[in-house]
């Protein structure tokens, strides 16, 4: 317990000393590049160091990463807005491909999210025994890729980092997975790559049509007024949406998600569900909406329908699952539907809700997967029919699972409520002032999802933790979570609580991105 805490503190201490001047001086270590480099560096260090150092290195580096995450979050100036901490290095200048990093309010939240999930994932993988070194190397590379994708302001690098993240995922599922792991790994990777193919074509189309031959997101966003005419937007927006949508498991391209998460090792499902999946919604807000607002408006009815199907359909399917982890996986699909629904409102409240929901879903899904993994590690089965009454032998994990369930259900006081509430507010507003009347009728259907979520989560709590202890062997064999198992889950719960109890700083931050974006979108029509 003490060495773990000491390592975490040491990681923080290093961050706060080394990156002290990062936000001010030109000679300071670049904060955002460090955020990408640290996990990748961690992979190399693990490669070189003796195997018994592996998890300590990972924890130390993850703590540093978390320190940077906090730093970005706290230093970011909401009042100023725009992209901050920008780092620009010319790369293939003639082709308009440059290494540009920068965060605005929305991506600053995502940076914090990545850091939190990386930190928790490092801890939850503490007791991995099979090929520990390789596992942590791939895990760290995965984080590096995701971190880069969230910070890139250049579509080329965005794409590069994204692909960089998908491949370690394939190996993580294929080697350390459970169940039909080869099938799941293949399915997940192929579907994600197919999605990214659409994405890439869209990027290239934007690149050539823009007339200025650039991949710079900031410039492409402004081109919506001059460069991309309405026909272009109408044609390309759905392709981009499809590409990004596959990442976010939009119906009917969602089936990689339950199989993938069902098979993936705990930390991999945490990172994927919490962070990589959120990239879909994030990219729609970052790339597709600013560059093609007319396209978005044109396709809105279809997109709203898809997102609603995601929300409700996945929730209904979750009701019938027989595997503990599959329920959570479908729940994650359903929550991503809520994010897309929020985006489709094209309203300040709805888009802010979508971002807060992205953050919240990242934290909460990671927490839930961490719990499922821990319980699975103890009970050695995930079949709901065989579990039951586990609260008697693992009261702390049971209590934490109830908390996680409530966060998923959207209980006020935890982060899920803030996002959902804002999304519904935005959805209603979309309908209220003329605009897209489709929302007025769909709004109650969307709210139905919150009832469905309550039903399947409480069913899960009942089937796994409540009732009499089903397997009497558990009485002697199963112990409650240890310190190292509880720590990451409790950490994520605290983050969710903070957002739920005092959402103002988080919403202010996301609004720093959304308010100008909405102004920008309103400029059309």
């Amino acid at each position, binding site marked *: 317990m003490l060495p773990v805490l000491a390592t975490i503190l040491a990681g923080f201490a290093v961050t706060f000393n080394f990156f002290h001047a990062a936000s001010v001086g030109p000679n300071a270590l670049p904060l955002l590049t460090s955020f990408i480099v640290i996990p990748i560096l961690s992979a190399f260090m693990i490669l070189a160091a003796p195997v018994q150092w592996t998890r300590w290195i990972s924890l130390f580096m993850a703590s540093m990463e978390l320190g940077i995450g906090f730093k970005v979050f706290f230093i970011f100036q909401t009042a100023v807005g725009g992209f901050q901490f920008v780092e620009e290095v010319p790369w293939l200048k003639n082709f308009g491909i440059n290494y540009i990093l920068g965060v605005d309010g929305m991506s600053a939240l995502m940076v914090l999210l990545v850091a939190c999930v990386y930190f928790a994932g490092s801890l939850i993988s503490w007791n991995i025994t099979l090929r520990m070194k390789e596992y942590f190397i791939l895990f760290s590379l995965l984080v590096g890729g995701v971190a880069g994708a969230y910070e890139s302001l250049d579509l080329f690098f965005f794409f590069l980092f994204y692909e960089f993240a998908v491949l370690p995922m394939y190996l993580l599922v294929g080697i350390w997975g459970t169940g039909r792991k080869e099938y799941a790994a293949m*399915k997940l990777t*192929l*579907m994600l790559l197919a999605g990214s193919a659409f994405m890439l074509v869209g990027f290239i189309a934007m690149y050539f049509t823009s007339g200025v031959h650039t991949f710079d997101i900031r410039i492409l966003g402004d081109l919506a007024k001059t460069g991309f005419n309405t026909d272009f937007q109408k044609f390309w927006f759905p392709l981009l949406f499809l590409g990004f949508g596959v990442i976010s498991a939009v119906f*009917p391209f*969602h*089936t*990689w998600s339950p*199989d993938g998460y069902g098979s993936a090792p705990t930390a991999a499902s945490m990172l994927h569900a919490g962070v990589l999946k959120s990239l879909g919604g994030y990219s729609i807000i970052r790339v597709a909406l600013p560059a093609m607002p007319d396209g978005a408006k044109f396709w809105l009815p279809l997109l709203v329908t898809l997102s609603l199907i995601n929300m409700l*359909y996945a929730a*209904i*399917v979750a*009701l*019938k*699952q027989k595997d503990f982890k599959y329920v959570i996986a479908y729940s994650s699909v359903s929550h991503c539907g809520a994010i897309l629904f929020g985006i489709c409102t094209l309203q*300040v*409240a709805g888009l*802010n809700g979508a971002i807060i929901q992205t953050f919240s879903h990242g934290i909460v899904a990671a927490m839930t997967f961490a719990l499922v993994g821990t319980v699975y590690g103890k009970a050695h089965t995930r079949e709901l029919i065989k579990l039951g*009454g586990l*609260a*008697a032998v693992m*009261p702390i994990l049971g209590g934490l699972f*109830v908390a996680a369930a*409530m966060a998923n259900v959207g*209980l*006020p*006081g935890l982060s899920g*409520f*803030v996002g959902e*509430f*804002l999304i*519904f*507010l935005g959805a*209603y*507003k979309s309908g*209220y002032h003329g605009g897209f009347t489709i929302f007025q009728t769909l*709004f*109650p259907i969307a*709210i*139905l999802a*919150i*009832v469905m979520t*309550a*039903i399947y989560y*409480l*069913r899960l*709590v*009942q089937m796994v*933790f*409540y*009732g*009499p*202890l089903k397997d009497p062997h558990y009485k002697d064999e199963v112990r409650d979570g240890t310190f190292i198992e509880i720590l990451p889950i409790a950490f994520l719960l605290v983050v969710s609580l903070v957002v739920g109890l*005092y*959402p*103002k700083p988080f*919403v*202010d931050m996301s*609004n720093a991105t959304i*308010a100008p974006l909405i102004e920008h979108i309103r400029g059309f029509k």
Partner: protein
Amino acid sequence: MIEYSWLIPTMPALAYAVIILFTRRSKVLSGLISILTMAACLGLSVGILIEVLAKAPADRVISISWSWLEIPPWTAHVGVLIDPLSVNMLLVVTLISLLVQIYSWGYMHGEVRFSSYYSYLSLFTSSMLLLVLSNNFLQIFVGWELVGLCSYLLIGFWYFKPEAADACKKAFVVNRVGDMGFLMGVITIGMVFQTFDFAEVEKMVSTGVANGTFQTGFIAGIALLLFCGAVGKSAQFPLHVWLPDAMEGPTPVSALIHAATMVAAGVFMVARTYSLFLVDQHAMTVVAFIGGFTALFAASIALAQDDIKRILAYSTLSQLGYMIMALGVGGYTSGMFHLTTHACFKALLFLGAGSVIHGVHNQDIWKMGGLWKKMGITAATFVIATLAIAGIFPLAGFWSKDAILAAVYESQIPGHIVLYFAAVFTAFLTAFYMFRLFFVVFTGEPRDHHAHDHAHESPFTMTIPLMILAILSISVGWLNLPGFDAYSKFVYHGEFHEEVFNWTMAWASLLVAIAGIILSALFYYWKVFSAEKTAETFKPIYLLLKNKYYVDEFYGWMVKKFVFGLASICTWFDDNVVDDGMVDGSGWITRKMGSLFSLTQTGYVQNYALVIFGAVAVIYLMVSF
């Protein structure tokens, strides 16, 4: 004191955190922290009451806000609203909480999760106080959901019992259904008025309706959406099904949450948002009839139940229906007054029932009997509460129930005479089934000798709260003695106007109640009539009542057929169409295409040469023509 009012919900929340994080291992410490915090909250509440009373009636509304979330044009606040209504609720909640917590010390002794129990109670009280003190729609919703969570945790406190595990889930989900409407109402308010603040919304509604900006029907729609939440939380028909099942929780919890405070939150919420309801008479009529129907409906079910706690649960439903009906007919003061008196005598009834259960370890009234001699204090306090709920002069229930009857009788809504007779008949039934319960449990010969021999009076920690509540059940009603009217002059909506106590009506209802008691005595005390034979004679009716009009069965069937049926269809679709069909299908097509084209890879050089020759020939032909 008022400037410290924010401490009232904060302190129990801190107590919860401290118990969960630090003192979980020490039962004594955890219990003490929780009880002392509650005592401090009660002290603060009394201080606030004194301070508010010292002010002139016009200055009694104080609202303090802090920004919680800002998205222009909205600012959501956390805040505290001190006015007579919230002070009334503050006192009820903190007082009953304190007494129940003291009582639990004895009732829950020996419980392994004693500390968790106290932490949940603290969290509950905190959430309830957050709800009560709220000055805006969003915060009241937040508190509303949080009390729902605590209710879930406490109903499922003995989670290893399958019934408890079922009941807590049911309670949460049924409440969620009502909350859907509530949430839609809150969002609509946020949308239309661009604010969540009660006072501002109230102002905008009154000016907006006056100058025709808002149609009254629209406001009524919002009010009814909010009312959906109240129907869920206050367990009104058709969302009443969760409350009887909630009796699976520990009995002190039933007393606190499912009788005195949380279930009254729906009534409180309607009172809090009363201006929206008052705008349109149709909304009021709906409220009044749902309340009146639930009162009669639940009272009739209570006639045929055998479980001591379930009888009390149906009685709670019925009394909540009374309060809702009172609000619906415009009897704001009488509804809130009944809430207050009911909190005292219903908490007493439940705690008394708990004392009985503690003594005989059973909940079936037909296994009890003759407990009067064994449990003197419990029996004496129980009879006081029973008289109070039956509405016997001069106990608390007499004054509050008659205020409601008078309000119904004098109201202007269509069909109020029907409601009046339904209410009077409910009063008759209430007296009958409550005394049935009393006679069967406490008088006559013991039915189960083993249980009877084992029975004993409860410890002091349990009987002292009983005695305090008994005193309150007698005397709280005197706050509103005709001519004195301390309560009516304190809690009212809009302008205060004197109400003359209607003695004729009071005597009439008293006679009805006494008739109910006498009839009950004829059946169950003197046994002039045989209950079994009557049940046999009216068997269909008896079965209908005993099975609660089969509402649970109907809902169960609906959920099974529709929700799970739909889930089966969707799951099938997902597995077979989306997954096997589209996803694996595209993989299959790719593989087949691969094997098809692989036919061309024969490995014979002459084949390749043939293809090359053919291709060259084709290209040549194309170019030359």
